[in-house]
């Protein structure tokens, strides 16, 4: 019977591989973001499997602090990625809407001068 530590460490490596595979596979933002979170959970599981010291033993607190930091970093990266995705979708839908309005107004009013592309 393999030790609990090794079982959970291998589970962590498994999660990391599943997440990595899905990150490389998906193009869309949301599935890729979920895959990255799964990948992160795998690395965190490796850290905590290392810290485990048996049912009675005191676990090593340093990986616990590192993984806590990792969880908070992961949620802020997720929030940022979702904000970027939402902004891109808004720009795409605005473009489609302005495309539609532009084709209607093409006949009547003069076309609005192209706004200077201020970087």
């Amino acid at each position, binding site marked *: 019977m393999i030790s609990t530590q090794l079982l959970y*460490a291998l589970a962590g490596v498994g999660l*990391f591989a599943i*997440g*990595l595979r899905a*990150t490389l596979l998906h193009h869309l*933002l949301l599935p*890729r*973001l979920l895959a*990255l979170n799964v*990948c*992160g959970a*795998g*690395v965190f599981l*490796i*850290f905590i499997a*290392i810290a485990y010291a048996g049912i009675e033993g005191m676990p090593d607190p*340093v*990986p616990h602090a*590192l993984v806590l*930091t*990792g969880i908070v*970093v992961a949620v*802020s*990266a997720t929030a*940022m*990625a979702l904000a*970027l*995705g939402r*902004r*891109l979708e808004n*720009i*795409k839908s605005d*473009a489609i809407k302005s495309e539609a309005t532009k084709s209607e107004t093409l006949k009547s009013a003069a076309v609005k001068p192209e706004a*200077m*592309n*201020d*970087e």
Partner: protein
Amino acid sequence: MSNAIIWVIMIPLLGSLISIIWSRYASLIAIISNLVALVASTAVLMRVYQSGPFLHELGGWHAGLGISLRADALSSILLVMSMTVISAATFYASAYFTDAAKRARFWPLWLMLTVALNALLLSGDLFNLYVTLELLGLSAVALTALSDNRAALQAAIRYLSIGLLGSLVFLAGVALVYAGYGTLDLATLASLVQANPLSQVAFGLMTAGLLIKSALFPLHFWLPSAHASAPAPVSAALSALVVKVAVYILLRLWVDVFDLVLTLSSTMLLGILGAIAVIWGSWQALQAQRLKLMAAYSTVAQIGYLFIFLPLIAALPEGALQDAAFTALLLMALTHGFAKSAFFLSAGVIQQYCGHDRIAELGGTARALPLTIFVISLSGVALIGLPPSGSFLGKWYLISSSFQAGQWWWIPVVLVGSVLATAYVFRILGHAFGPGESIGRVLNRGREEIPALILALFATLILGFGSAELWDLVAQHAEAAGN
């Protein structure tokens, strides 16, 4: 004055916080905090130059329990370079952003990018490197997305997901190192690490993560679109600093911690990838239609040069020859930093005043923006590696050490790379000096052009002539690393 190492990180952080609250005075706060941080970083460099590398143990804890900040020759030189580029770009940005809302959004993130760069260059702890890499990645992506158009956002999203993947692969390596050696401090690790399977796999994972972050050839696809669509001061910082700092971590891990683990064949692989990056990057730069895209591909090429040095340093015997190659690597990195940031800043001026940066339609800009085109040609000199610039010395030593190491095949790569670089620089100048009436009157925008000029002069003159001190600083670093 060991506290200077703390002020370098804390001043920009406080500046970023205050600029969120008082967004009206953000430009002023940013300029002041970056200048003070620049002075503090030169104080750190002076201290390292006089009394060798020093350590600042945070929280008073030592021996791996706490985190220690480490300043030695390699990190303090890069620290001063990054602070100089950041300060010049800060002056530039205060005149570049005309729209008040966009300016108020830019400064807090820009100062957070400075904090991430300085914290990363000074960090001496593996997990701390992960956190600073993450902070650097997130602030760089946020700044890229600032230009709020479709291309920039798509580039930012790809840059973010690739960057997160790179950080997680790096963290997996850190986890394995902690599993095996039970410490995260680089100094204690340096004495513990031996060449066993765990170290090889852990170092392999960390290298893979850092190769993604430093955009070496097969993993560079996110770089061109991100650097080309970001605002000018941001792409200057991205190309000159963010990718180079990832190469710095790889070097530090390799030279200080994992030197027993690295085999010649793996450095040779990195060298070959670097060579392909040089050729492919320069070729793509030649094809690029826009100035900023060309500069981004030229960054991919220049990163390739840095990786060509690795097999040479591994093959050369310990001592003067290896130090010379190491110094040449540092010199190439510094020169490219200054030259590329000057190039991007002047490309920003052209973009703003000609309304576009398409190379084919650059006719007449030489008459309209004389100083900007002069700065572009100066940084072109440094990118190609013509004599007065630092990269001339860098390439010279690259060729001479590849002779000594018997790896002659790097020489044709360097020559082809330099010829292609000459081609794409003169393509720009050709169009710029050509006929055409893009803007009627002569423009000089001091606040935007002077910083770019200073950076370009750094790249060509100061690093070309004044690099003698660099040699004995690195020799001192070698002794420190040796004993």
